[in-house]
């Protein structure tokens, strides 16, 4: 197949042609470059506060536990790295799922900003099912909680899909609204006097605890100190499912066709409305699953603060954009953001190097910059052009 950017005999290729070329060249140029620029700008912000950016990034990196991968880290620092890496992967797990929640809708040409709401609805359902029905056998209980939470997420996403399919309401608007409905409903349910508020701690705005038999087993690390639970494999499995559904099934083909060009898809006999609904429902399913896995895997209960301060679904947008809506890209993007969040947390970051409260905001800053730059891929073309001119100017 001919690359559209290779028509050199027709004069210099246009910006659009160059862009198309970069997008096809594995699509890794833009994410890598924008990531580097975002971290560089973040470093300047660190420098502005009078700290050493290289030492700060080094401390954040150590806090992520990714140094566990280096064979020369041994002894006590190795076991610390292992425990840090478990935390990073605990965060990576829901980010993979909310990432593919956003990515799946993107592939259908829809922008699912509602990952957050779908995640919360999933978490609410997960904690409700997980903390009631104590007599149910463990495996069945976990399955029931996960399935119902996923369905709740699918319902939340499906509302937006249905409104898009029937009356053409823009999914960005409806998902933003649904996020806030979930936020306040969650605050009501677990708030003081709310219907799902804890029956033992009546003065704390928290849910009941998930019963022991419904907790996901921990396979790496200490179960008491938040080791890594099997939900990580569920997320990896979801990545595979995401890839197969998109690339090897009729539904996925239709979803992608609608994403490329809804008019052409309609002409080709594809049910565009059905695809809109399905894409949003499947999106919500993944995000709802993320909520359930977090609850059953390591949170075990949910507070009003958790409902209000959680940003897993929002980070999922950055994950999907940086991962270019592909399975592999989403995995690495989720790992990056999971590592950033865990490496800048109060628990992991060495406060003598850089204050964790500052670092937490640094994470948001870097996320924002990455989304900003990834969203404008022509920047890469302009940057390369500017670089060429600079090189040519130097004899």
């Amino acid at each position: 197949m001919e690359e559209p950017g290779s028509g050199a005999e027709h004069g210099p290729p246009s910006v659009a042609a160059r862009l198309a070329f970069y997008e096809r060249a594995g699509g890794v140029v833009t994410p890598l470059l924008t990531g580097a620029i975002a971290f560089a700008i973040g470093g300047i912000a660190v420098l502005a506060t009078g700290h050493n950016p290289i030492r700060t990034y080094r401390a954040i990196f150590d806090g992520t536990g990714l140094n566990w991968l280096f064979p020369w880290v041994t002894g006590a620092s190795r076991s610390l790295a292992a425990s840090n890496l478990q935390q990073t992967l605990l965060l990576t797990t829901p980010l993979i799922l909310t990432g593919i929640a956003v990515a799946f809708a993107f592939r259908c040409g829809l922008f699912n900003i509602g990952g957050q709401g779908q995640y919360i609805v999933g978490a609410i359902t997960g904690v409700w099912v997980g903390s009631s029905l104590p007599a149910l056998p463990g495996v069945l209980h976990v399955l029931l909680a996960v399935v119902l939470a996923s369905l709740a997420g699918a319902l939340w996403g499906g509302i937006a899909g249905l409104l898009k399919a029937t009356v053409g309401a823009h999914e960005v608007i409806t998902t933003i609204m649904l996020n806030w409905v979930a936020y306040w409903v969650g605050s009501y349910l677990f708030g003081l006097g709310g219907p799902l508020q804890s029956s033992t701690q009546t003065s704390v705005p928290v849910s009941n605890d998930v019963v022991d038999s419904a907790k996901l087993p921990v396979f790496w690390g200490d179960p008491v100190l938040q080791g890594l639970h099997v939900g990580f494999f569920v997320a990896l499995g979801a990545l595979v499912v995401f890839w197969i559904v998109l690339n090897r099934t009729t539904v996925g083909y239709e979803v992608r066709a609608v994403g490329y060009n809804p008019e052409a898809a309609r002409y080709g006999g594809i049910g565009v409305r059905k695809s809109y609904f399905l894409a949003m429902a499947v999106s919500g399913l993944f995000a709802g699953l993320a909520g359930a896995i977090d609850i059953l895997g390591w949170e075990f209960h949910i507070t009003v603060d958790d409902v209000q301060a959680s940003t897993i679904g929002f980070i999922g947008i950055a994950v999907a954009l940086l991962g270019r809506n592909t399975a592999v890209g989403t995995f690495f993007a989720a790992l990056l953001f999971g590592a950033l969040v865990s490496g800048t947390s109060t628990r992991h970051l060495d406060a003598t190097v850089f204050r964790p409260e500052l670092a937490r905001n640094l994470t948001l800053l870097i996320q924002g910059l990455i989304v900003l730059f990834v969203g404008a891929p022509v920047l890469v073309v302009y940057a390369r052009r500017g670089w060429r001119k600079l090189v040519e100017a130097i004899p």
Partner: protein
Amino acid sequence: MRTPPRAAGAGGVVLGALAFWLALPPLAERSVAVPLVVGALAVAVGIWTISQHEARLGSGAVVAGVSGALLGVLATHAGTGNLEGVVVWSALVAAMLRFATPLTFAAIGGMFSERSGVVNIALEGMMLTGAFFGIWGADRTGSWLAGLLIAMAAGAIFGLVHAVFAIHLRADQIVGGTAINFLALGLTGFLFVDVYGSNGTPDLRSSQQIPDVTISNGNDFLSGAFGQLNLMIWVSFALLVLSYVVMFRTPVGLRIRAVGEHPLAADTVGISVYATRYAAVVLSGVLAAMGGAYLSIGFVHSFNENMTAGRGFIALAALIFGKWRPFGAFGAALLFGFSSALAQRLGGVTDWSSYAVLFQALPYVLTLIAVAGVIGRSIPPAAVGRPYEKQ
């Protein structure tokens, strides 16, 4: 002209509101029948209006009738003492205006941006930026006016960033807006922690607070509601009228709307699409930041990380609910402000505080209903969200 059905529909909406109002103080009707009968009447009028092909007003009357009857029945079951504690009309109106004002500023800002064809979901971030830089500026200069101006400048810069990415770099406008929301959250949080640390923002002197305008200290309803409003509330009223005149009665407004509806046609007759969009998006940043500055130095008198807490998104909802028109958006902002005010006052009553939280979801549910087309479709400007490439 189809005047009679339209008048009937409007009357139906009023009847629906009346069903609720009758059950509240000062009348505080205790019989369940009253709100039910009045609400049913509103529904009947609504159905008749729909049958006369005025579906929009008719369904509005049906929705108003049903919700008025439901809320009215709820109110008749509440204790009179509690009701009188919550429903103090003058205080409710004043609180409604306080909650509505940040929304009004941001929604009108959003109107300029979206009418010119650039989606602005970054209102939240721009408002947050204004809130931080407003208090930072007031703290550094000692003057609220300087704080307000610095906030507006900061909002303009974020507006400019959004404009460059949306217009020149042809980035997806929703992705760009999401990025700005992240950026604003990170930047204001970063600066807040770095500058003020764990102590929080210092107490503001009166010269650092946007002043209240005292018209009257009386005890009657009008003095209670309007006697001591913040200056920015009056500014928002003026802005409302001004933005309506500019948008619908001047050539400038016509150009903005033309660029947002059909940029190619506007370009053909010599209107600069890029310049118009740049100006509109920067203006939206300035106005959203004014709403934020009101919040920090006019209303709460402090700043906290993520203090806007979704108000920018409610403003967006108000804009859509109000069909991208100034008075529509203002009406929606008042409705949302009223639900916040009611929630605040309900929160003070122990038996009801948990339900008060649910009230906060009302603006979002109403907006969902509005975009679903039950109360008439909200149709955005035709070219909104699409980058324009000059031919």
